[in-house]
């Protein structure tokens, strides 16, 4: 059996804005203990003023989900049980993937699925329960917001390298 297919993985997807280079995307796949399995990062994307005007309110969603997020998810060789992002506009990547994608924010009782200090907002209904079950093993091991810090540190390191 293909080992990659049997490995339990979780995806963390985010973007990092660099004042000089533009927008980087990072995608970290970890095992249930939070250890890195794969890391993918994009070349920086710089948006011109004209593009900002042309895309208007749709820019963020298109840039994050349609461009960066879709490219990163396509690069992963492991299929994670869930993809977590801390950038709301990244949720538009759902249009480009069959993987469940959920938003992680600071815990706010009363909204989303509380997981330690994090709050996971994802699909609704039955899908929400499935998402909760999928995330539980990972949430027991790591703070769900912490891997995003690692992605940011790695992209920062890549810029200095």
């Amino acid at each position, binding site marked *: 059996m293909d080992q990659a297919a049997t490995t339990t993985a979780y995806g963390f997807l985010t973007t990092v804005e660099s004042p000089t280079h533009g927008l980087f995307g990072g995608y970290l796949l970890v095992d249930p*203990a939070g250890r890195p*399995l794969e890391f993918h990062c994009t070349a920086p*994307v710089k*948006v011109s003023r*004209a*593009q900002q005007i042309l895309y208007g309110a749709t820019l963020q969603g298109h840039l994050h989900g349609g*461009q960066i997020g879709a490219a990163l998810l396509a690069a992963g060789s492991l299929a994670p049980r869930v993809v977590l992002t801390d950038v709301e506009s990244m949720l538009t990547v759902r249009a480009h993937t069959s993987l469940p994608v959920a938003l992680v924010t600071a815990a706010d009782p009363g909204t989303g699925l509380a997981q330690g200090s994090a709050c996971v907002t994802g699909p609704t209904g039955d899908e929400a329960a499935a998402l909760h079950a999928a995330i539980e093993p990972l949430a027991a091991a790591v703070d769900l917001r912490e891997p995003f810090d690692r992605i940011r540190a790695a992209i920062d390191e*890549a810029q200095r390298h």
Partner: protein
Amino acid sequence: MTAIRGTDSLRSWHAADLALPPVAVTRAIDPRLPSPATLRLPIEQAVPAVVRLPLLEAPPGVTSFSFGLPTAPPPPPRPRPVPSAASAGPAADDAPPQGSQKRTRVAAPRDVVKLSERFFFLLQPDLETILETSRLEFPRPPFPFQLDGMAFLLPRHGAVLADEMGLGKSMQAISSLRLLVRSGQARRVLVVCPKGLVSNWARELADWAPELVVATIEGEQGRRRWQWSLADVPVKLANYEVVVRDRDLVAELGLEFDLVVLDEAQRIKNRSSHTSQAVRALKRGRSWALTGTPVENRAEDLVSLFEFVAPGHLHDRMSPKALGAAAADHVLRRTKDKVLTDMPPRLNRDERIELSPEQRETYRLAEEEGVLRLSALGNEATIQNVFELVLRLKQICNFDTATGASAKLDCLEAELEEVQASGRKALVFSQWVETLGRLEKRLARFGALSYHGGMSTVARDEAIGRFRRDKRHSVLLLSYGAGAVGLNLQFSQYVFLFDRWWNPAIEDQAINRAHRIGAAGAVTVTRYLSAGTIEERIDEVLRTKRDLSDTILSQAEAPASSGLTADDLFALFKLAPPRRAAA
């Protein structure tokens, strides 16, 4: 009018399209000119250029890194380290506060340049998470600075953990090697320590890495050959002498280690020694050196240490400042006052003691005679001659050779009465076994026990056990050579330096047998100095040497003279060093 439908239409505009007649200009001004002509204005050239705005269509390039599939089993629900009463380490009261929000990250060392390798470290979870998810139990939760020490060791192939004595270097090394073994990064580890500390290390390994099988290399050669050959034992423990003796055997067996840990690594400060050569000959992937005194006497000590840790990284011609800068990424040194701000204080007392009349007279005669003899020798005087005189005078400061009178012992005896009355325990250090023997007799009423190199390992362990358990034994008498390293005697509240060692680092090691993590309260250190004697003069030299160590480890400028030179020795007696004729 033609409708404008797009850019193509724009390009084909003509004046005719606008249904305008050609512009006629009558040349009425000059009748000699030809008949009026018709001019066409080049309207086509005024067509505006088209700007095409690139849309965000092509996806950005993606760079990928893979870190391999996990080898560790899936984690259990957040286990918390459970303090164990059986631990030989600090008491539960000394455990760090729980629930700390500090997260310790493992950073890539400076010499890791490949981005993929730097990412490997950067993208790991914090150390607290790794420990919690690795199903590792500890006798007590590590202190935050100890986690920092592990985060320092883990990514490094060459490292010197130079924490001040008592901060738990061995625990940090054991926990780190445990994680390496656990993650499959190390399968064969060798720990090398002084002979007297083998049982200590075996105990520490059992406490801090109970699941690791450890083979202690000892006994006759056939037995050692078998022990070295054990393939399924992840950790082997050997003393320096065994490593020297089995150097050829290790080579013959083709042994290679993923990690070699040297404890009390100052043992290899002499590069030409058999010990240094033997450990440097070990084939190894990672080299960690543990020492509280990376610089004992001279800056070259650190260079020698690096010949094991990172060969060629340092050299003798570097200035202390350059040495410090070059070594910085490989050396981690913390002192208790920096990391254990709530550790019980160490109270230092330099007690100047007037010699007894008998001692004073004997001392005066010995010094006068010795100095006269040195003066008479002139340029033939050797360092050995000076040493002999120094030793003789120091011995008189301890005991009058003729009468056995000792002002220091009188003072010590009085102080020990108070120690015993308060139910406390005291350590007394001397450089001479003979002095310890005299002290043991005179201090028998305090249940004095001895611990020195003249005793067997079994007898020494027994003495420590009795001193630890039995309240009737208030005093342990130790030689600097045997008792200054590796012992955990933090249940002692008093340390007496009956005489002074040549090196402040050794004195610190001795003091830190008691003043270390787990110390039950303030530790009072009393250093006896015989007033107006050679001991006071040596003390001045020791202070200078202490400055040198601080200088290199803080990358500051060093004093010009940093060791106990021949000039220093002669200066103790206000003598000029002999001038040798050039060969």
